[in-house]
C-alpha cells in the first residue's frame, strides 16, 4: 500500500542527510516495528510518512489516496474539552457520518476503555488515561495506515494489553501499522517485521519469522573459563565475549554447537550452567546496533 523508494531527507541548513536511501514497502495488513536509537531518523521517517515534510529525493508511493491514523507520543488533544467532546470533534474532522461515525466511536471508546471517562475533562485525566484517550483519537480515523509512537508509555499493564489487542484487531481487519516502541517485547508481540534505523539508514529489515536460526550459548563456571575452550572459540572464529566466569557465544550454528559440546564434555572443570537459546529481539537489536539504545 505504501512504497518508499530511495528516500532521502536533509533538514534545511544541515550538512548531511537525516535519512539516506530508505527503501521498503508496507503491505496491506502488515504491522512493522520501527526501531532505532535516539537520532537514528525515526522521527524524520514518521514525519515523511505522515506527509508533514516532503522528501529531498526519492519517492513515497501510495497505492491509494493516503489515509492516516496517528497516535503521536505527545498528547494530541484539547485538555479543556471532555473526552467525549474531543472524540466528537475529531470524528467531525475525520468527516465521519452516520453509522460509520457510531461504529468508529464505539470501537475507539471500547479499545481505550474510556466509557467511564467520557464526561471528564481531558486535562483532568491521569497520565495513563490521557494516553488511552490519545490512542482512541488515533484509531478513530477511518484510515488504512496507522502510525503508533510509544503508545503504551505510562499505561498500566492491563490497559497496555488492551491497547495491544486493539492494535492486533486493527491488523486483522486489514489495516497497516507502523509501531515504534523502546519496549521490545511489545514489538515482538504485535509486529511481524522489524526495521532498524541507524544513522539515517536501514540497518536491518527483517521478518520476525525469518529471525536467524543461530542460537546464543552462555556457559558459566565457578572458577575461571578453561583456556582451551577460549582457544577453540578463536580457532573457530566464533563471535564470543568473556565476562568474569562466563563465556557468551553469539550466533552459534548447529554444527558449531555440536563441536563445542564435544569439547566442553572433555574439559575440566565442568561448567555449572549452560543456556543454549534463540536470541530475543532485544539481544538481536543490541547485537546489530552495537549496544546503542
Amino acid at each position, binding site marked *: 500500500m505504501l512504497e518508499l523508494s530511495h528516500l532521502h531527507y536533509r533538514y534545511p541548513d544541515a550538512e548531511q542527510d537525516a535519512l539516506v536511501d530508505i527503501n521498503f514497502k508496507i503491505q496491506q495488513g502488515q504491522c512493522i516495528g520501527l526501531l532505532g536509537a535516539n537520532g537514528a531518523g525515526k522521527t524524520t521517517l514518521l*514525519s515523511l510518512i505522515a506527509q508533514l515534510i516532503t522528501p529531498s529525493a526519492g519517492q513515497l508511493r501510495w497505492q491509494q489516496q493516503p489515509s492516516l491514523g496517528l497516535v503521536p507520543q505527545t498528547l494530541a488533544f484539547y485538555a479543556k474539552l471532555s473526552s467525549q*467532546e474531543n472524540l466528537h470533534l475529531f470524528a467531525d474532522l475525520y468527516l465521519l457520518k452516520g453509522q460509520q461515525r457510531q461504529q468508529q466511536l464505539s470501537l475507539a471508546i471500547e479499545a481505550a476503555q474510556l466509557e467511564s471517562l467520557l464526561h471528564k475533562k481531558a486535562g483532568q485525566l491521569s497520565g495513563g488515561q490521557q494516553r488511552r484517550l490519545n490512542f482512541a483519537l488515533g484509531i478513530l480515523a477511518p484510515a488504512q495506515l496507522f502510525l503508533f509512537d510509544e503508545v503504551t508509555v505510562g499505561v498500566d499493564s492491563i490497559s497496555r494489553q488492551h491497547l495491544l489487542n486493539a492494535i492486533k484487531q486493527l491488523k486483522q481487519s486489514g489495516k497497516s501499522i507502523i509501531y515504534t516502541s523502546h519496549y521490545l517485547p511489545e514489538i515482538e508481540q504485535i509486529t511481524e517485521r522489524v526495521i532498524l534505523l541507524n544513522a539515517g539508514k536501514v540497518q536491518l529489515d527483517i521478518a520476525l519469522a525469518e529471525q536467524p536460526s543461530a542460537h546464543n550459548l552462555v556457559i558459566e563456571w565457578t572458577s575461571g573459563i578453561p583456556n582451551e575452550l577460549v582457544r577453540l572459540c578463536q580457532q573457530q572464529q566464533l563471535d564470543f565475549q568473556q565476562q568474569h566466569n562466563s563465556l557468551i557465544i553469539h550466533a552459534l550454528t548447529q554444527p558449531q554447537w555440536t563441536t563445542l559440546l564435544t569439547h566442553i564434555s572433555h574439559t575440566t572443570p565442568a561448567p555449572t550452567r549452560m543456556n543454549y537459546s534463540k536470541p530475543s529481539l532485544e539481544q538481536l537489536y543490541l547485537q546489530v546496533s552495537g549496544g546503542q539504545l
Partner: protein
Amino acid sequence: MRLWALSIKELLLLSRDWHALGALFIMPGLFLVIMAFAMSAINQDELPAVNLSVDIPNPSPASAFFLAALEKQLPQSQVQADTSTNQITLSPTFAEQLHDNPHQGPKLSFPANSDTLSRQRIRSAVTIALAQTRLWDFLIDSELISDSAPLAEQLQQVQLQTQSELEEYQILSSGAVGNRANASQMSVPAWLIFGMFFIVLPMSNSLQLEFQSGVLVRLRALPLAQSTLLLSKLIPYSLINMLQFVLLFSLGFFALPLLGLPALSIHGNELAYFVLAICITSACCCFGLLIAAVARNTEQALLLSAGSNLILAAIGGIMVPKNMMPISMQHIAELSPMSWALDAFLTLLVGQGELKDIALWCYYLLAFALCTGAAGVILLHRRVQNTLWTTQN
C-alpha cells in the same frame, strides 16, 4: 464541516478560559467604569456647583439685586458663610459706588485649592452680575423699573436689556475632537478598543497550544488546509470582538448613567459604527495572527500580547488622552492603531461625523490588518510546514 467544528471548538475552549474572558470582558469593563469616574470632572455637560461666600457689610437693595444676579449666573452654587472657600466681599459703600467711573468692584479671595476653572467662572459671574446691578441702578434712577416690583421681576427686566440671541454652529468632525469629549465619550471607546486588542492573547495562546501539543500534527495529517486552520481562528475571534463591541458599548449606554455618570450618547449613523467595528476587529485578529506566529510558546505569547497591547495603549491615547500629551507625544501617538480607532470613534461620538469622516482611519486600520495579517500568514505557514512528528526520545 471541518471549519464549523474547529470554530465551535474554539468558542467552547474560550468559554472555559476564565483568564481570557477576564481579559476580554471584565478587565476593559472595569477600566471603562473606573476611568469614566476618574475623568468625570473633565468636559462635563453641566458644570459643577461652585462654593462661595458673599460678605455684605452693608445690605441694601443694590446688594440684594447683585446677589440675585450672581446666583442666576452660578446656578446650583452654594453660598456659604465659610471664609475658607471662594469669597466675594462687597464694599460698605457698594450701593453708592455703582455710578463711579472707573468703578471699583467687589474684592475676590480664592483659597489655594480653588481650581482655575472655578476662579474664571466666579470672575465672569461677578463681572456680569455687577454690570447688571449697575444697569439696574440706572434704570431705577430713570424710573424705567419700579423699585416696588418683586426682585425677580426686576432681575428679569434687566436681563431682557442685557441678553442677546447668539447663533451657534458646530463644524462637525473637523480636526481633533478629543479635547471636547466628556468622561463617557472618552472612556467607553478607549477601553473598548483596549479590550478588543486583547483578543490577541487567547488567539495566540490557542495556536501555541496546538503547536506545543501533538494536535497540529494530527490536523496536518488529516490533511487540513492551512486556510481552514487560519479561518477557524479568525472567524470565532472576530465574533468575540464584535460581541465585546456590543457589550462594552451597552455598558456605556445603559450602566454609566446608573452610576451617576453621563450616558454615552451615540450620534451618527449605525453603518459608520458597524464599519468601524469591522475595521478594528480586522486589525485585532490579524495582529493576533502575527503574535501567534512570532511567539514560540505560550509564555512568549502572553508576554508579547500583553506587552504590545500596553505599549500601543500607552502611546495611543488610551490611558492618557492625546490632548493632554505634549505635541511630540501626540505625533508618536499617530503610529498606534489604537489611536486611529479612538480618533474615529471620537469623530462619530463627539464630532457627530459620518462614514466619510472616519474613512481615513478605517483605511489605516485595514492597512494595518493587511500588513500584520500577511506577515502572520507567511510566518505561520513556515512554522506549520516545519512542524515535525514530535517525540520525547
